């Protein structure tokens, strides 16, 4: 019995840590299929273990809302489950994040602008704002990089927040810090 539960725990960790799709994370229904009906119990146990390492399980719905493990399967089924960092990073952690300080600052500008424009803005507008501090070619390149990484999403003529911003960034907090 205990062996079975350890096996499920390992499987859950594999599913959440290792990328099996283009984007990280896994859907609730996939977890249920792999771990069985009590998958939320297995995930709660995993959460306890990884919490000691400063990690947490994050559940995000398609519309970007954060959910918890106590919600029913009907709600969790289509949500995406990730493992993410639990506590805030420091500016020195940037060196290991793969992003430069310029790129992070540019992304912050884009996110704040999109939020202030009620969720969408044009590429030209973002390029124009970024170009006030960066060369034009760099602004264009950065925008494409943010879209590729999933932080922004390009829909027809507009740019909106991407799935990754919705999952990884506390939007209320970022605005608070910009205005502080």
């Amino acid at each position, binding site marked *: 019995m205990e062996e079975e539960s350890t096996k499920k725990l390992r499987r859950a960790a594999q599913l959440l840590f290792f990328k099996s799709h283009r984007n990280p994370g896994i859907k609730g229904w996939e977890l249920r299929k792999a771990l069985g009906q009590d998958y939320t119990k297995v995930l709660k146990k995993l959460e306890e273990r990884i919490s000691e390492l400063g990690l947490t399980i994050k559940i995000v719905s398609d519309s970007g809302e954060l959910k918890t493990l106590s919600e029913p399967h009907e709600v969790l089924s289509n949500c995406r489950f990730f493992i993410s960092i639990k506590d805030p990073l420091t500016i020195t952690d*940037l060196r290991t994040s793969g992003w430069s300080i310029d790129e992070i600052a540019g992304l912050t500008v884009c996110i704040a602008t999109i939020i202030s*424009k009620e969720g969408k803005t044009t590429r030209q507008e973002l390029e124009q704002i970024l170009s006030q501090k960066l060369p034009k070619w760099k602004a264009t390149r950065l925008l494409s990089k943010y879209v590729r990484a999933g932080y922004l999403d390009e829909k027809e003529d507009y740019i909106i927040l991407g799935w990754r911003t919705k999952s990884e960034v506390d939007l209320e907090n970022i605005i608070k810090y910009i*205005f502080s």
Partner: protein
Amino acid sequence: MLSDRETTNKKEIQKLIEELDNIISKEENILEINLDEKIRKLAELLSNSNNLEEINNCSEVIQRLAVIIFEKTKALKNRSGILYIDPFLTKLAILGSDVEKLSRAFIQSWRPVVGRDVINPFLLKESMTYWSNITKYSFEEEREERNVENEVKINFLSEREISEEIEKMYEELEKRGGKELYEKLIESENLSDKIFKAVVLSFMITYGYAGIIREPLKGKVWVVKKEKTTESKNPESFVIVVK
């Protein structure tokens, strides 16, 4: 006895009720749902309704619309309360901030996803199973043409004489007037026979003994007999699912 108009009206109202129930029960972003079309439809149905039951059903639609509008208002209030900030002020705040302040704002609000692109034991096991199940055929240096001889070589057709089978099927097609639905021609009691017939038929088509006529709108595929000397001038291939 309901008139035609009443029956259609009743059906339309019922359909509208089901659509709205669907919206209410789903976990979608309610702000993205456009109700204009549904309200227009309701107005149309209501103006056509002249008995009590129809009017009563329309009131059911109104009740559901009210629930959705209430939910939309709640969501909008919630969202604007959290996130509404003045664009002009934001621009000023951005321009007044240095790179470090902006980065710090992001870092303090960022909880990056942790994930690895690695080969894991599970994937290794899966790939081993896959590797052992694929036939040698796929790895031959020079890809051999798919023909009867090769299929026989890889034991696919080892137990039957393919040319006899082609002949039999050609006669069968002739008996059926030279034209038959694909699925009827390969019809069989068990799946392995059905698949065998499909393979034979594919060779028959490749050799130019039969042709295919597709009717995409009706979802039908016809097999038509050709003279055995006929050669396909524009060879093409397409997939047919054998159920």
